[in-house]
């Protein structure tokens, strides 16, 4: 039976090698394997458990490989941005550098200082790892390639990510280090503010797709041959910013501002425990990029290209491109201050995403009630929303004082004579 991409059903029967396409698509291969198990007369729960195992192992493997690749990509790309080469000694083009680093982290002594809260100190690296991995359970990597397609997938993503807060706090508290505690407090304050933005930004997607199921959002985008990105540019920008905060990427890497609070909540961690934090950061980046790709960039579909290229490859391609965005900002932008970042969330992003939800709700209502055809309605909505996004961002920025002279660059005054600007009255008396 030929593969039908629209249903995502996978192979039902027949030899695996029936079609060239099936060889490449891992989802089909797994489906065929499960069918084969079923045909052998195994009880119902066996394929269920086996499929779960395959999914978990595949995701874990891929995540770990991706994480190593991310580290390499980031170091090379930033190296290029900084007019230097980057790691290029271990393996071809330095490809094995992350592996060498991992081995080094394994071999290093994991120091536990005397005054830490031992139980929580151990729990920190584990806790930070869990939510980042759990998010990947609901991501459809290809047609039928997901661990579970929850009814409330979008909400699940946010809920699980919020547990991250606790992990960071536990790590920071248990370290018994002031920098760690400062970092933990900053992180918690920041994550709480930006979770709200994330939820509201995702609301627009959910309103359009009419479902919180991740698979359904991808299907909706593929059905209407559009990406949510074009319908929700404002929410997309807000979500990217909020995600950057969530995974601690610059310019929002306040939670681990190395020039201020050393390494924040993982200051006291060394060896493989630090490795866990380091890895969790990249896995969280992977998860966030996966969410962005799924919800805004059409997931594993790309206007029919998925007929020719395996969906999971498309997905990963988009994912790496999205990750490049984060690398780019890290290579170019300095860091904001915590109060500026919080103000940005509450005063700038929140009104905009709230407006976006309102506009999106109205549009969906018009679409439903007005009985418009998708071919007519969606381009109009896209254009309206794009125009609205530009107008709102510029307008609100002006309103908030962005264009005021004190926020604009200036130049030094040049003079030829010494002592021209001098004020000759008595110096202010200050108690030292």
């Amino acid at each position, binding site marked *: 039976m030929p593969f039908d991409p629209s249903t995502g059903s996978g192979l039902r029967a027949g030899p695996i090698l029936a079609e060239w396409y099936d060889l490449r698509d891992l989802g089909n291969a797994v489906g065929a394997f499960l069918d084969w198990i079923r045909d052998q007369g195994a009880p119902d729960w066996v394929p269920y458990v086996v499929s779960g195992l395959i999914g978990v192992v595949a995701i874990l493997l891929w995540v770990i490989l991706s994480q190593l690749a991310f580290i390499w990509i980031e170091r090379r790309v930033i190296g290029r941005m900084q007019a230097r080469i980057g790691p290029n000694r271990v393996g071809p083009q330095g490809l094995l550098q992350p592996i060498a680093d991992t081995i080094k982290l394994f071999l290093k002594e994991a120091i536990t200082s005397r005054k830490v809260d031992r139980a929580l100190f151990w729990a920190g690296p584990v806790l930070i790892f869990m939510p980042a991995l759990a998010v990947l359970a609901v991501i459809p990597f290809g047609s039928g390639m997901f661990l579970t397609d929850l009814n409330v997938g979008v909400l699940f993503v946010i809920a699980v990510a919020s547990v991250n807060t606790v992990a960071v706090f536990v790590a920071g508290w248990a370290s018994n280090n002031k920098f760690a505690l400062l970092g933990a407090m900053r992180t918690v304050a920041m994550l709480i503010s930006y979770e709200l933005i994330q939820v509201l930004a995702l609301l627009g997607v959910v309103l359009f797709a009419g479902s919180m199921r991740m698979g359904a959002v991808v299907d909706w985008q593929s059905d209407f041959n559009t990406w949510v990105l074009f319908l929700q540019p404002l929410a997309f920008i807000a979500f990217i910013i909020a995600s950057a905060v969530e995974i601690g990427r610059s310019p929002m890497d306040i939670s681990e501002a190395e020039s201020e609070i050393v390494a924040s909540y993982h200051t006291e961690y060394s060896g493989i425990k630090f490795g866990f934090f380091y890895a969790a950061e990249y896995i969280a980046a992977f998860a966030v990029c996966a969410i962005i790709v799924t919800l805004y960039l059409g997931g594993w579909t790309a206007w029919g290209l998925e007929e020719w290229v395996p969906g999971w490859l498309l997905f990963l391609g988009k994912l790496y491109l999205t990750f490049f965005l984060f690398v780019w900002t890290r290579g170019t932008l300095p860091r904001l201050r915590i109060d500026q970042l919080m103000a940005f969330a509450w005063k700038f992003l929140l009104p905009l995403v709230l407006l976006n939800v309102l506009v999106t709700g109205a549009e969906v209502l018009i679409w439903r009630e007005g009985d418009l055809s998708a071919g007519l309605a969606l381009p109009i909505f896209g254009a309206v929303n794009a125009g609205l996004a530009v107008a709102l961002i510029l307008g609100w920025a002006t309103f908030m004082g962005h264009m005021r002279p004190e926020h604009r660059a200036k130049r030094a005054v040049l003079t030829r004579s*010494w002592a021209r600007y001098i004020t*000759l009255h008595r110096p202010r008396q200050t*108690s030292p």
Partner: protein
Amino acid sequence: MTADLSGLDLGQRIQQKFPDAVVDARPEWTEVRADRLVEVCTFLRDDPELNFQYLSSLTGVDRLDHFEVVYHLLSIGRNQASTLKARCHDHENPEVPSVVSVWRGAHLQERETFDLMGIRFRGHPDLRRVFLWEGFPGHPLRKDWLNFPGGQMAGLERFPGEPGGKLEGRG
């Protein structure tokens, strides 16, 4: 070009205002009495013709029998510089009044001089050691620091290779 205000000139001006304050005046510097220091410095800072509102440098010199505190003054508005000195005769417990109340910039410099030279600045708001730790023995920039036997002091007597006896200090 920054004009070097002659010490004689400066001494005269101070003399007019405080007749008993000037101890000695040379072309390079003016020496004032330590107990009148704060008044003199306030005058130097506030007098519109002198206008020394910038304390360039403050340091001490161990002259074996006494200590000298040297103030390099600068007037940014008039672009002139001068040197003021104060002397503390007690070599064991040197003490001069602090000029932090006149020039805020003396704060760290007086702390440094106290730390390395052992000169106490009366009225300094926060006179602690700055480079060395509390409990460091002595003040290293004093010539008699460590008290070498035979009254030997830090310093070079002659160049290495120059004819003479075994190289010892300046003592």
